[in-house]
């Protein structure tokens, strides 16, 4: 039974594989007034450590999850309530929650969404759909060596108001590993074929890094299917690229060899969990994965520089565009967003590296949501 004015804060589920999280530190003290969206608690998962923002407002009456404690998804973390709710009611609420709580068994939850695959032109493409809203759909496209799981913090947030499709590009994740020439135009055509097969019509396109260049190409070749573009640390806006990262990523065959390179993706390397490394190594072991990455890298990089040039084609782009960059990006420098035309919205996020949408997820989600809202109102 839910007492009036008492709100449970529970362990969130970030990504498909998360079953439990460990409380690292609380960012608010018991007795403090917190607002929805305030930093509340840092949670470590086997994959990544992230700040959890308060899902509601109220006085933080109890921190049930103690620092260092590991709790299943859905378990009670904290209790928010108004000041006037008596302590006895809070205690009764916690006791009731503990009696009723049944941890979701891995795989059994009916609400667990799973990626799907579809065959298009002899090619298998994997994607994950979240959200059922009737509004214009959103398509998320990951970067070089990534997959749909890199949107684990983005996709659930955007799915509140949109149907959101995160896709695996050819050569990546659970999609076929044939990549033809491996250039963004080819990747864009594969993404477009999937959009067509799913009957998406026009969508808001969001792309990270190589995925940014991919959705840019898609919007150029099929402007009627792009409602807007959000590019996160995109490829194609300048010549610099951290080839030491690219080569290290390609070479590493064990999690421990990979770690120093994956840490370069974040401003705060301590966020990288073992599972993130294991997942990348598992991907690289798939037949054809490393060959696909080699083909792509050989096409988009030459002599330690980026080959793809999008910035010169900005004038041809007929859709609203925003660019988001982590200020501390060590893979593609944020300075690539300097000097762009005024029609382009540019946001630099402090304290974030190349994976800005994972590292500062709430800020990036808000930028995207605000951008999409603004377009709807026009």
């Amino acid at each position: 039974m839910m007492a009036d004015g008492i709100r449970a804060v529970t362990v969130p589920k970030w990504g498909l594989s998360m079953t439990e999280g460990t409380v690292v530190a609380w960012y608010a003290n018991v007795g403090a007034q917190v607002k929805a969206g305030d930093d509340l608690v840092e949670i470590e998962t086997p994959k990544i450590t992230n700040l959890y923002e308060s899902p509601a407002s109220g006085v933080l009456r109890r921190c049930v999850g103690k620092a260092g404690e590991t709790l299943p998804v859905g378990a009670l973390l904290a209790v928010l309530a108004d000041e006037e709710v008596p302590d006895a009611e809070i205690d009764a609420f916690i006791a009731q929650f503990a009696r009723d709580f049944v941890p979701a068994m891995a795989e059994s939850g009916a609400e667990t969404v799973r990626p799907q695959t579809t065959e298009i032109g002899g090619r298998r493409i994997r994607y994950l759909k979240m959200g059922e809203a009737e509004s214009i759909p959103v398509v998320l496209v990951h970067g070089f060596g990534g997959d749909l799981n890199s949107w684990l913090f983005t996709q659930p947030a955007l799915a509140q108001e949109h149907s959101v499709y995160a896709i695996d590009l050819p050569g990546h994740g659970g999609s076929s590993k044939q990549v033809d020439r491996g250039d963004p135009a080819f990747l864009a055509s594969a993404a477009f074929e999937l959009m067509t097969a799913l009957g998406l019509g026009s969508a808001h396109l969001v792309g990270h890094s190589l995925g940014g260049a991919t959705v840019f190409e898609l919007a150029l070749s099929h402007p009627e299917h792009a409602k807007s573009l959000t590019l996160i640390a995109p490829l194609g806006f300048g010549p610099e690229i951290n080839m030491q990262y690219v080569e290290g990523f390609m070479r590493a065959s064990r999690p421990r060899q990979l770690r120093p390179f994956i840490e370069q993706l974040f401003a705060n390397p301590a966020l990288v969990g073992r599972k993130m490394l294991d997942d990348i190594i598992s991907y690289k072991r798939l037949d054809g994965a490393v060959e696909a990455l080699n083909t792509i890298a050989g096409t988009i990089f030459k002599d330690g520089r980026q080959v793809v040039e999008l910035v010169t084609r900005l004038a041809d782009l007929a859709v609203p565009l925003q660019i988001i960059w982590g200020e501390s990006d060590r893979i593609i420098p944020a300075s690539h967003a300097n000097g762009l035309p005024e029609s382009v919205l540019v946001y630099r996020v402090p304290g974030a590296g190349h994976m800005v949408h994972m590292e500062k997820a709430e800020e990036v989600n808000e930028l995207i949501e605000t951008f999409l809202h603004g377009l709807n109102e026009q």
Partner: protein
Amino acid sequence: MARKSFREAINDALRLEMRRDPRVIIMGEDVAGGMGAAGEQDAWGGVLGVTKGLISEFGSERVRDTPISESAFIGAAVGAAATGLRPVAELMFIDFVGVCLDQILNQAAKLRYMFGGKATVPLVIRTMYGAGLRAASQHSQSLYPIFTHIPGLKVVIPSSPYEAKGLLIRAIRDDDPVIFCEHKMLYDETEEVPDEAYSIPFGEANFTREGEDVTIVAIGRMVKFANEAADRLATRDVACSVIDPRTASPLDEETILDSVKETGRLVVVDEASPRCNLATDIVALVATKAFSALKAPVSIVAPPHTPVPFSPTLEDAYVPNAARIEAAALAVMG
């Protein structure tokens, strides 16, 4: 990606490699289902159902039931491998190796060396090992140290469904004879396993837990127990690294030595009989190459030097378990 059992993961690996390469064939007792006689096809798919469904896809030319004569069919598999096929032969129980050891030890393991590299033997022998199934002394042994002792053989001992699929695909693609040892108590274990083909390299150990206090080396089914022990120890503020070497030969010496240099403490878990087993080999390695890093005497968790008992009570007492590993780790912590 879906959850698959150890049994399904192995079946998956066989199926994908048979589709990829027409030279890959399967042979063994009951792998098709009729002991070489006319009977219901695919009735069993091997004694524990691992090869089920393969004969219907690939036919009886490529999924061959053999007579109950390991001497004959393991020998035939060595010959087939030397002359262009890539056979996966199933030695139902590792305990039966006695009657075909010459074919493995003197033929398969030696041909490449004795012909100066002009001959190869791309043979995989899949075999079931280990105690726990109440199968008594002649069907429960962990004889992988015998193969590890023989130069020219590669010895693979997978610890989970994901590992089994990737290592078996790697084994089938290898040009040398590989002994692929499957613990019979793991077949119903499940985890996420990609649908696609992937291969895990030999000689690369895997950390299943990472910690700075104690290094626990375990292989095959013992990895599961070592993980359980490490998780319990974590609640007592003892942080363990658990290393699964994956392959007994080649052995990833570097990873084990590096870890012991970090922790200074070593526990090795082995289900094989305690004399001249994998644990004594690893302990000798550390004693010779990282002795000065040790903060405490090394510890071995292994069964007693007896046949595997049939009595369930005695068998349970015989097999190393998480509690014994935990106690050993606490003892080396002092």
